[in-house]
């Protein structure tokens, strides 16, 4: 019944992981010290090195980092979309409703992908196949995972288009991708990702290619869909503004490592890692009375093949000491689960002295700064 190649048996709903309860003491998605290395000619690229987080239904995790920080590779690994070789999982585990995704066969993973965990990509222009109608592409997952007939799939495609706010869906299902604008295509991608009502929606820079007014539409749509379906969202982005908008939890990544993880509240108002501070200071603030000058992070991200000794951020960190340059910091974890990979995160005086002005743990002299819209 698949569009391509061999006929696939639709999954019995009872076997569907999505319909099984999350085991006691575990979470919807648990990523546990995941390590993903690429073995290349130039050496071992430690693209993902020790990522851990948990996610439950209805939550949104924001993953922030620069290009090459491993934020996308982590989630391609979760989806089982990394070619191995050159990729190799060097440790850790990914558990979905208590089941390890790394132990699953390719066939089991195919049931997971799209059905339980769905992904949308940055570029809506190339994510859709130009030779099939939108309706056919939307219905493909349903026919694959749910065993829908052609008519049922088309009927559902119309509903999905309507749900994501595409006007005149009965007509539009018969259209081809080039007949849609960029924002409309991203809506189609969201409809496609939500077609099988997945538990987790991984969105890899879903709005980066879009204009700001369209970005606002798409973010609102994703939030609305989440409210309705109760799914979890992983929002991968380089834009702190976008995560401030949507995220409940935030993971900041640098050179393959999660350097800080916490609730949105913690990351924005009580950040403890110098890289997070650097990111916050790098963004032009929506104007107050005077223009604040930006404090960029000096230097360039390190080579993942040839990581500096000690803390990978130490060459660019304004507070780095000799200890930072020789010794990899342990995770500093608070009782709320907020963690940071810095020797000094536990030093309240250091944090108060150096944290950015809008941080609530910063010295009171420079607390609370404006930003009214």
């Amino acid at each position, binding site marked *: 019944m698949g569009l391509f190649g061999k006929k696939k048996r639709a999954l019995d709903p009872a076997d569907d992981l999505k319909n099984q309860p999350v085991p006691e003491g575990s979470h919807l998605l648990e990523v546990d010290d995941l390590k993903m290395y690429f073995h290349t000619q130039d050496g071992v690229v430690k693209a993902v090195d020790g990522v851990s987080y948990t996610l439950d239904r209805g939550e949104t995790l924001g993953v922030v980092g620069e290009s090459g920080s491993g934020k996308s590779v982590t989630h391609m690994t979760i989806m089982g979309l990394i070619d191995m070789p050159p990729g190799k999982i060097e440790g850790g585990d990914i558990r979905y409703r208590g089941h390890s995704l790394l132990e699953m066969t390719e066939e089991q993973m195919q049931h997971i992908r799209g059905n339980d965990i769905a992904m949308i990509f940055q570029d809506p222009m190339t994510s859709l196949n130009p030779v099939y109608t939108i309706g056919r592409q939307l219905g493909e997952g349903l026919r694959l995972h749910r065993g829908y007939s052609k008519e049922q799939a088309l009927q559902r495609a119309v509903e999905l288009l309507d749900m994501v706010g595409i006007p005149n869906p009965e007509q539009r299902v018969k259209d081809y991708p080039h007949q849609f*604008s*960029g924002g409309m295509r991203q809506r189609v991608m969201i409809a496609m990702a939500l077609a099988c009502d997945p538990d987790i929606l991984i969105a890899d820079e879903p709005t980066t290619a879009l*204009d700001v007014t369209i*970005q606002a539409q798409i973010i609102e749509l994703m939030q609305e869909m989440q409210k309705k379906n109760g799914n979890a969202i992983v929002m991968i982005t*380089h834009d702190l*503004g976008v995560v401030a908008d949507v995220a409940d939890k935030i993971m900041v990544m640098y050179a393959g490592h999660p350097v800080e993880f916490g609730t949105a509240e913690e990351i924005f108002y009580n950040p403890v890692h110098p890289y997070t501070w650097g990111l916050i200071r790098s963004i*032009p603030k929506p104007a107050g009375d005077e223009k604040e000058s930006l404090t960029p*992070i*000096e230097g360039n991200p390190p080579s993942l093949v040839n990581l500096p000794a000690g803390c990978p951020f130490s060459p660019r960190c304004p507070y780095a000491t000799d200890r930072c340059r020789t010794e990899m910091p342990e995770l500093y974890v608070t009782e709320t689960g907020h963690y940071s990979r810095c020797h000094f995160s536990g030093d309240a005086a250091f944090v108060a002295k150096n944290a950015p002005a809008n941080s609530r743990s910063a010295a009171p002299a420079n607390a609370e700064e404006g930003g*009214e819209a």
Partner: protein
Amino acid sequence: MENREPLLHVEHLCKRFPVESGVFGRGAKRYVHAVDDISFDIYPGETFGLVGESGCGKSTTGRCIMRLIEPTSGTVIFDGQDVSQLKGKDLKKMRHDMQYIFQDPYASLNPRMTIGEIVSEPLVIHGEMTDKAERMDHVRHLLDIVGLNPEHINRYPHEFSGGQRQRVGIARAFALRPKLIICDEPVSALDVSIQAQVLNLLKDLQAEFGTAYLFIAHDLSVVQHISDRVAVMYLGNLMEYSDWKTLYDEPHHPYTQSLLSAVPVPDPDVQHSRKRIILPGDPPSPIDPPSGCRFHTRCPIAQKQCSETKPELREVCPGHFCACHCAAVNPIKETSIEL
């Protein structure tokens, strides 16, 4: 500021690109109205920000001013000379004083030339510093100013990261000490931390050399940060312009207001508490732009006259221009539209 002579005076600038229509190109010729009758001034040493969404014509405006593409009509007066009439030697002279920084740090440097050759090329073209040793000294100095290692003069662009390449592009633009630099999305291809480095560099260089910038970008917060005055473009038209602070605090045009409200603010409390105006639909095609006000198809406060007559840019406060029939009468903030 208004008393001084403008360095660049743009008046009624238009650029239309013909599009093929019909199988044999017959029938009425159709045009993309990329830039449609825009006027503004840039004064010496200031930064004029031009912001808008993709396809609004902001880059086309920059390229027309530089004469990288020929404007369809309108006047561009740079440093007292009508740019659109310049030919040959005079055009070359104009390009001595006006330089361009490109968006894509990968495509804007010739991969077959060394960094030294790239940065010295404007000097060679304009016959300045004919002595090679002197020229290379100057290039080393320029590399140093933009924060690159002068020892890397013999390296090739592919050996550098995106942010470093953009610094090379900036060094090249400053080689001739121009009076105006058109910065076409110079930081949008860069990572956040690198973006801040480049923005600071541009500010520092401006402070040192007194160069004026036409800063074109889609990112409103970046434009606000670097500009003295900001203009908002939509579908080839200027909708509103004023000094950066007024535009931010008291936007008159509904498009500016929605643009400002759509920019995500990196502060969850602000983000969750503020009112957002989400515009419906997509920007219309510039091939057959809407009649009257270009924005009326998406405008939350559009009236009947908006689809009939095109609003002129009016000075709503000194130095603050806005092209909207309803703006002054009925600013969106007071109508409290819930969308």
